[in-house]
């Protein structure tokens, strides 16, 4: 069975926690296929994919920050309120003080940074548990939102709306597709190929057993296939639509933060602190600095998410950001992070977020009421966490193993299907 192990390992990177991610990707594909059938193919139409990306990009952006917070062993309950607060500040600044929208975005990020510094101070330097600090922040900034906005809905100008509701312009010859999206897809394909080649090279330099050529080939074929499919979908929507701008922002953030958490000393410190704070401290990691950074970073991303939502909604309203924290936290946990910290990946969280997003979307397309949607989402979260607990008590690979076992003997095809699924994620993270 080592062939299969080989493939699984090589397709998804290889470390232990990736097994869980593999399971989630499998779940994601299953959900997509299920709804694709149930909705008569509506799920994978251009229009729907575009809508899903622009609807959930801000939640996924929050999930990036939340992943880092949770890996460091904390939690942030205030993200929704911070987003709403930033939204109203920015909207008011543009409406009442005629701030140009570009400057308004900078202002929003600064507001986020200031809030983050405030919360980070209490968490890192005073030592108040993040749960309490951000519970306080949740009330504080929700109240701030209402205080500043008087519970009004404040519209934002057209230019600002680009970051939430904008699309890439139509340029160049009429190819029947959005040309810029096609270019992005091409770039992503190139990046994937380059990365594969680089990875093989690195393995060689390490003197490690080289990945079998056929595995590389399959992996490339799957990834390129997914990217091509996604590109054509996103480029082939109604004229004037493309991969949404918010989706591009998300992709850039995913790539940047994946790289940061995986390949830099700073990123590794976050995992060290979450895995064993005392051991990290005794290895020279500056605990306070790491904790301060993750909390601050979270608020900056929350501010960005808030602005994207306001831009998408064309106005900042008093209900912005309500219970976003729950969506973001759920995405992170479904994506394989450990409640106790130290474990989890950005791409995993994105997959977790997409599982929630597509579940939501599919149920809505099916006309299932929001009450049932909430019930189903709650059960999915619980199941994912239970899977994690069960996994840990049984040794890491058992659950995934047992899901896979039935498929192994007769026909390995579903495994491939599992791999195909990276769809949205890989489009974003493959290049990282």
């Amino acid at each position, binding site marked *: 069975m080592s062939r299969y192990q080989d493939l699984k390992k090589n397709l998804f990177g*290889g*470390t*232990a926690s990736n097994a869980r991610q593999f399971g989630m990707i499998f779940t994601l594909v299953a959900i997509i296929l299920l709804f694709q059938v149930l909705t008569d193919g509506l799920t994978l139409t251009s229009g729907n994919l575009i809508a899903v990306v622009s609807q959930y990009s801000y939640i996924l952006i929050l999930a990036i920050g939340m992943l880092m917070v949770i890996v460091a062993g904390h939690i942030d309950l205030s993200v929704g309120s911070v987003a709403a607060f930033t939204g109203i500040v920015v909207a008011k600044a543009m409406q009442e003080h005629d701030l140009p929208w570009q400057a308004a975005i900078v202002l929003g990020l600064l507001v986020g940074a200031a809030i983050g510094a405030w919360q980070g101070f209490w968490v890192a330097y005073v030592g108040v548990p993040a749960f309490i600090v951000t519970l306080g922040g949740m009330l504080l900034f929700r109240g701030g939102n209402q205080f500043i906005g008087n519970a009004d809905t404040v519209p934002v100008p057209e230019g600002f709306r680009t970051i939430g509701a904008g699309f890439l312009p139509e340029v160049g010859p009429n190819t029947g597709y959005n040309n810029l999206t096609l270019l992005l897809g091409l770039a992503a394909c190139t990046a994937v190929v380059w990365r594969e080649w680089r990875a093989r090279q*690195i393995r060689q*330099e*390490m*003197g*490690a057993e080289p990945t079998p050529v056929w595995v590389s080939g399959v992996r490339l074929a799957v990834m390129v296939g997914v990217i091509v499919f996604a590109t054509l979908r996103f480029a082939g929507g109604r004229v004037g639509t493309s991969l949404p701008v918010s989706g591009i922002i998300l992709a850039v953030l995913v790539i940047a933060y994946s790289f940061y958490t995986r*390949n*830099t*000393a*700073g990123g*590794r*410190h976050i*995992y*060290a602190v979450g*895995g*064993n704070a*005392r*051991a*990290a*401290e*005794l*290895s*020279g*990691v*500056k605990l306070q600095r790491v904790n301060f950074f993750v909390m601050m970073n979270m608020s900056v991303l929350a501010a960005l998410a808030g602005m994207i939502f306001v831009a998408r909604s064309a106005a900042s309203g008093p209900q912005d950001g309500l219970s976003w924290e729950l969506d973001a936290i759920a995405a992170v946990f479904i994506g394989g992070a450990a409640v106790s910290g*130290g*474990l989890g990946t950005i791409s995993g969280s994105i997959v977790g977020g997409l599982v929630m997003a597509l579940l939501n979307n599919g149920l809505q397309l099916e006309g299932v009421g929001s009450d049932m949607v909430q019930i189903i989402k709650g059960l999915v979260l619980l199941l994912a966490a239970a899977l994690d607990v069960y996994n840990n008590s049984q040794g890491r690979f058992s659950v995934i193993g047992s899901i896979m076992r039935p498929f192994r003997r007769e026909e390995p095809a579903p495994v491939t299907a599992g791999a195909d699924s990276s769809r949205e994620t890989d489009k974003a993270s493959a290049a990282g």
Partner: protein
Amino acid sequence: MLRRSRSGPAWSWRAAKRGAAVVNAVVNKAPTLLEMRSITKTFPGVVALADVNLEVRTGEIHAICGENGAGKSTLMKVLSGVHPHGTYSGDIIYRGQEVRFADIRASERAGIVIIHQELALVPGMSITENVFLGNEPRRRGAIDWRGAQRRVVELMEQVGLKEDPDTLIKDIGVGQQQLVEIAKAFAKDVKLLILDEPTAALNEADSRHLLELLREFKRQGITSIIISHKLNEIEAIADSITILRDGRTIETLDVHADGVNEDRIVRGMVGRELGSRFPDRTPAIGEVFFEVRDWTVRHPISTERLVCKNSSFNVRRGEIVGFAGLMGAGRTELAMSLFGRSYGIWLGGHVYKDGKEIQLKSVADAIGHGLAYVSEDRKAIGLNLLDDIKTSIVAAKLPKITRHGVIDQVKEHRVAEEYRDNLRVKAPTVDEGVTKLSGGNQQKVVLAKWMFTDPDLLILDEPTRGIDVGAKYEIYGIIQRLAEQGKGVIVISSELPELIGLCDRIYTVFEGTITGNVSRRDADPELLMKQMTSTKKMATR
């Protein structure tokens, strides 16, 4: 590891079989209360107790002595049902009948109460609540607090505790907390009281009070078993002493008849051949390059307790320096406070390296000045158990493998492979999670982690704790190689033979004070043990 009591009677009496107690040659004075016969207890891979016998007479104070790991605590866990009947072999005869305890509650019901070194009290609850925790007097289903109040006053008087019964545990000192534990035992109608290192955390006045209390109990007819490293205390209060070594009973001494003194006990505890458990080495010792003067550190919480009192010592290049002391003597505290003030509150003292004073205010400072500290508790604070081997090895000096903050994964891998080969870490790849390694291999990974920081001075805290003999030998070899490279090495160990076999010089520590500085030539277990157990400062030899 949850242990649940089986259904049915938790323990049963059975007609006692009279057997010859060979161990004790003492003339009978009082009837035997407890007899443990041929107790053998094995853990996977380790024989913790081999054929151990213990006989305790009614109304005596019986001490159990032995080095760390000799099997004292395991024996008491067998007695108190922590290791339930069936997980060991041998018989326990208590009050003339064979008993089989299924869990702690069963032994407590029989009147055997053990007080552990780590007190089992809830800090946020009052004395009364703690005394009756899990044993609440009930009246029609509800807790009878009035009855409890009345009873607690009696109990507190019995143990000489003068506090308001409503005081919270966290507001009283360790000494009083110890008394609360004893009161708790009395609330359970104790007949045999077992104290595991009861004075380890106490100051002298509290210790004296506690010992006096034990004598008082003796007058009241309560039997006590005391486990202690403090031989002076044992000499002072014990009636009989059973000495364990390597999981075996060595001898039982009658204090009054045999004319026992500390030296006699020490001989029993360490009297073993030191075989060639250590690789050969010819020390090449250079100049003093690291020196600590008047290092004084306070306990992080208890303001009046000093864990290091004006400690001064030095290390030469290429030298392996041992720190001997009993548990709680302050060795780890000294090491950690030196390592970037990672423990306690620093009150004063200076550190010199190569003749210049250096400031070690943070771990980063310490690492920067070439210090490395390998913790005694690998799993809790030495390693991130979620990491794999390679991440663990580079964790303390990431800058060595990063450029502009980006980790060079090829270099990381190569470095890790190198250490894996050199230290012979048994793992298929360096991507293996550290949890999957054995204790010895984990320890090698930790050593690699700190060797990777290019230290000048390595402080190794109990480097061979919980490691099998073969791996120990390898680790000794690594330590010796480090010394050969001209690094200074400090080894903290509770195993005297290890220190004597490995070190060029040994400092002894007792209650935060460095009490001796013995060279390899003069090091013998008895001398060290004496210095480790008394405040009397010995002349440097």
